[in-house]
């Protein structure tokens, strides 16, 4: 560690860094950092919490890409080069897998917002430090910090807007959120690699238990540090260190209370008062969250009436089934979640025929995959390809009823797909045909 009393060393070319140092922008020296709480220990506490949360958010995000089925070309964005986890068939068991994955991704992503803001607050003197660099090493590190700070804020902003259906940013959410994540990952991993020893050292510099017992009046600044996080001339404390930890933790708890209900459901949903998926639709059998209305999908009521037929393709010859023929097949009822990439989910009781029975009826009892097409003519998700394990799962249904009643138009009347652990948007509504493929 550098001695604080020694003049800082400059890298090559020293003349450049000296010139930079001697020409600070006007006004910069007049900034006085007032908080007596900033310091390496506090920053490291925030950092260690983020070090637990962020890898979960990152991995669940990358797993969601796999759940969309990149091997069928239906993960978005389509071409990501090497920027993905190795592809595997997304399991269809347990049924809550995607619900958990997205609940963690979106839920923790929201809950960590106060933590991210606190972490940025704790290190912000570094942004205004002069000179910004004394060597090539610090220039490179600053670029990586731009990737991590820009990355995390970009991901939070796009994610938070997306779950509220606000697409003011204009570009594709999936594309931006996915590639933005990789820029962030690059910055994050390098930042952890470089700063981890300092984080551990700083955490050890004070006792956490002692801090929790220290009142505001006994709070003194951390010793001056080489990075300049500790203010040399701070104001008297208005909060203790345990106080600021409680404020940040309380902020995270507040966000948790206001958002977790959209995933957990039941009586907790009513607390998600500011989110689209905290809304109540009533208490009828079809009164649960809608992700695309029949009107916006432009479903013609005439095509879902008596005229509606289900086409089964992929066998020796096409099979066309009307409602009576489908009703004559064995009906099954299962409790399954609809879990959206946006993090919300809801468990309902679905009744219909097994996709495996339909595959047998089509004449291809063990298909490699199945392409489900909707009556919806336009729209990014008017068809979805299901893997073999998803088609053959005994709980995978073409559902006609939910909670004992006929599906409502907004929930996909007359028939929709419901498959365990499948991203909700691939549980195609207003099904018109299913093509069972060999591979």
């Amino acid at each position, binding site marked *: 560690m550098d001695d604080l009393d020694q003049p800082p060393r400059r890298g090559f070319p020293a003349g450049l860094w000296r010139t930079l140092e001697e020409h600070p922008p006007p006004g910069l020296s007049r900034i006085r950092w007032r908080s007596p709480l900033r310091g390496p220990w506090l920053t490291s506490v925030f950092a260690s919490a983020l070090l637990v949360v962020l890898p979960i958010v990152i991995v669940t995000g990358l797993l969601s890409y796999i759940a969309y089925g990149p091997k069928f070309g239906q993960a978005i964005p389509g071409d990501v080069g090497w920027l993905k986890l190795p592809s595997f068939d997304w399991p269809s068991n347990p049924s809550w897998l995607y619900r958990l994955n997205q609940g963690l991704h979106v839920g923790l992503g929201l809950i960590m917002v106060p933590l991210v803001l606190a972490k940025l607050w704790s290190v912000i003197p570094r942004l205004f430090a002069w000179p910004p660099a004394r060597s090539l090493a610090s220039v*490179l590190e600053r670029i990586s910090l731009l990737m991590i700070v*820009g990355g995390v804020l970009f991901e939070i902003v796009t994610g938070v807007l997306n779950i509220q259906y606000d697409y003011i940013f204009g570009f594709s959410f999936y594309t931006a959120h996915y590639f933005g994540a990789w*820029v962030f990952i690059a910055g994050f991993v390098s930042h952890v690699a470089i700063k981890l020893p300092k984080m551990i050292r700083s955490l050890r510099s004070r006792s956490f238990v002692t801090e929790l017992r220290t009142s505001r009046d006994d709070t003194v600044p951390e010793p001056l540090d080489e990075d300049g996080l500790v203010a040399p001339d701070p104001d008297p404390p208005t909060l203790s260190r345990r106080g600021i930890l409680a*404020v940040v933790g309380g902020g995270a708890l507040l966000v948790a209370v206001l958002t977790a209900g959209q995933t957990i459901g039941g009586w907790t949903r009513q607390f998600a008062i500011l989110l689209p998926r905290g809304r109540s639709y009533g208490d009828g059998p079809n009164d649960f969250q809608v992700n*695309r209305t029949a009107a916006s999908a432009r479903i013609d009521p005439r095509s879902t009436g008596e005229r509606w037929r289900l086409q089964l393709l992929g066998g020796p010859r096409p099979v066309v089934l009307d409602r009576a023929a489908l009703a004559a097949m064995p009906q099954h009822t299962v409790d399954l979640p609809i879990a959206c990439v946006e993090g919300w989910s809801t468990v309902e009781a679905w009744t219909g025929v097994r996709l495996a029975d339909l595959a047998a009826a089509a004449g291809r009892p063990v298909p490699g995959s199945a392409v489900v097409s909707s009556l919806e003519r336009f729209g990014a998700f008017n068809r979805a390809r299901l893997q073999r394990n998803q088609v053959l799962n005994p709980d995978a249904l073409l559902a006609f009823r939910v909670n004992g009643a006929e599906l409502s138009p907004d929930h996909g009347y007359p028939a929709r797909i419901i498959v365990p652990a499948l991203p909700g948007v691939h549980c195609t509504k207003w099904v018109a045909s299913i093509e069972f493929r060999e591979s």
Partner: protein
Amino acid sequence: MSVFRRLYGDHVLHLIVLLAALALGAYTISVLGVDQLFNPRVWWQSIAVWFAVAVIGHDLILFPLYALVERFLPKGRRRAEPVDAARRVPIVNYLRLPTLATALTFAMFLPGIIEQGAFTYAAATGLTQEPYLARWLLLVAGFYLTSAVCYLVRTVMTRTRPALPTTR
């Protein structure tokens, strides 16, 4: 100190890690396509612009703004007599906390509160964003009310507490 360290300014592993990160970042942009970073028709609906604005918006707008608001909070400059000071509850955190909660919820749930994205909201949910503003305002009222009650209770408890020879 090695020659490398003197020239570069840090350990060689530092350089390796950062070069790997920059390469991964550059590869990410190359897969996305540089042209995809910019929207030639509506400049502000560009990925690059939003990325930059995320940083600038936080570091150079949001942070100075909340630092400024913080300066206006009454910090209690110990003008009172020492005995009296021990019996006064500083109001600063009873203003700071509900304000933070208000700002946090406003920033995170802004689209619903100002009814932005109404068309896609309706297409997705079949509902309108009409209730959110009132709900948020009630929440804010709740924040400040809770804070005021806590302050009152604390003040009464402090005033009625027998004076102690030491401050605590």
